[in-house]
């Protein structure tokens, strides 16, 4: 008989509030964005004000007539207005002297494309808000269309694989680093396979949003869009981290650091082979993706090393 360990893992200590969302909702079975979303008020508490826009989360975040799918104070935005609306709300609460955490929750389509201008503007003004982008690498709610966070060679409904095309022809924007180059307080990448890391970052973001802009980019692979089994999302997240396809790092007041060191990164092929949307990739394309992943990682590594002195300097 297996000895029962009566104590839950440490990550459960981060959950200060019970789930604020209704039990059954419209997210697909196995959706990591659902896990991303439900965790937010569990870690940050239920007195936050959330904002979202049309995206995969919208059917759950927006109400329907009088009914709602969650118990949080909520403001529904147009896609072009998430970060800007959050700025207005957060400034108003600041004016009346109320300490309220304002949290934006959108997909990558909004954060990197149509809502990028207000996001960039709010970041430049270092608004006191938290912006969480769940990256499922496309416009999934409308049927898997490509966004500027869709990786190169991914098959989507607007970048299909055919005689003349091998999926998306261009490399994705690396949004977390773009945000880190704004004058913000905190930027972090997180994913669902590393829940304690994610919970820590949520808490950090809430704390840093009292001084300025906090951005978290969560890798949340869409079960339908990635063409994986409904039980595979967490595994894909884990492999994304282990191959350095999605490194876990944070930037706090100009200092970059990795929050998960990957000692011996696996070849990116092991991640790509898990996802059906990359099933058409051959050797040359895989090599190209590997090169891109390696270059991105070295850039991050260089930033970590360059800003490490800053951290040491501030500590001495």
């Amino acid at each position, binding site marked *: 008989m297996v000895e029962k360990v009566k104590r839950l893992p440490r990550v459960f200590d981060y959950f200060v509030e019970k789930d604020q969302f209704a*039990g*059954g909702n*419209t*997210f697909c079975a196995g959706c990591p964005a659902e896990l991303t979303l439900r965790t937010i008020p569990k870690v940050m508490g239920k007195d936050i004000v959330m904002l979202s826009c049309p995206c995969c989360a919208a059917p759950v975040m927006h109400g329907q007539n009088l*009914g709602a799918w969650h118990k949080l104070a909520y403001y529904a935005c147009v896609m072009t207005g998430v970060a800007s609306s959050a700025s207005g709300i957060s400034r108003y609460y600041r004016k009346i002297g109320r300490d309220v955490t304002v949290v934006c929750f959108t997909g990558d389509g909004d954060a990197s494309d149509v809502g990028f201008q207000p996001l960039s503007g709010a970041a430049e003004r270092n608004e006191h808000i938290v912006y969480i982008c769940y990256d499922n690498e496309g416009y999934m709610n409308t049927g898997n269309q490509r966004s500027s966070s869709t990786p190169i060679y991914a098959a989507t409904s607007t970048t299909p694989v055919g005689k003349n095309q091998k999926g998306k022809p261009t490399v994705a924007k690396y949004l977390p680093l773009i945000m880190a180059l704004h004058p913000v307080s905190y930027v972090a990448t997180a994913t669902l396979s590393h829940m304690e890391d994610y919970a820590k970052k949520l808490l950090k973001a809430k704390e840093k949003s009292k001084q300025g802009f906090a951005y978290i980019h969560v890798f949340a692979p869409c079960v339908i869009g990635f063409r994986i089994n*409904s039980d595979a999302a967490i595994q894909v997240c884990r492999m994304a981290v282990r191959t350095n396809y999605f490194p876990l790092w944070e930037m706090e007041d100009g200092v970059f650091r990795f929050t998960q060191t990957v000692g011996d990164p696996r070849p990116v092929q092991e991640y790509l082979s898990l996802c059906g949307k990359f099933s058409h990739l051959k050797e040359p394309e895989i090599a190209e993706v590997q090169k891109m992943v390696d270059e991105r990682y070295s850039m991050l590594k260089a930033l970590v090393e360059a800003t490490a002195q800053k951290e040491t300097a501030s500590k001495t």
Partner: protein
Amino acid sequence: MRAGISRGENIKMAMKKLTYPYESCWSNADELLLYLETGTWRTSRPKVDKEKCNYCGLCALYCPPQCMIDKGDHFEPNLEFCKGCGICARECPRKAITMVREE
């Protein structure tokens, strides 16, 4: 000389047919919290082997709809909402959960 038609009377009469309580589109979860019976979606359900389970909590951690109920020394799925995705079975380090086909 004919004066213009006043719309005030028409508005007063029609107001009676209005049922939604607010002037603009607000939802109120205290009045109405919506949920879907997502338990009807699944084609297989998780079965927890209590002997193998070591209460590590990973199934509850990774369950997207957060429907693993803490039973004190093991976890069990809330079958009203479990969508049957199978993440709990996949992630369980003790392989204590198996996905069993629904009848």
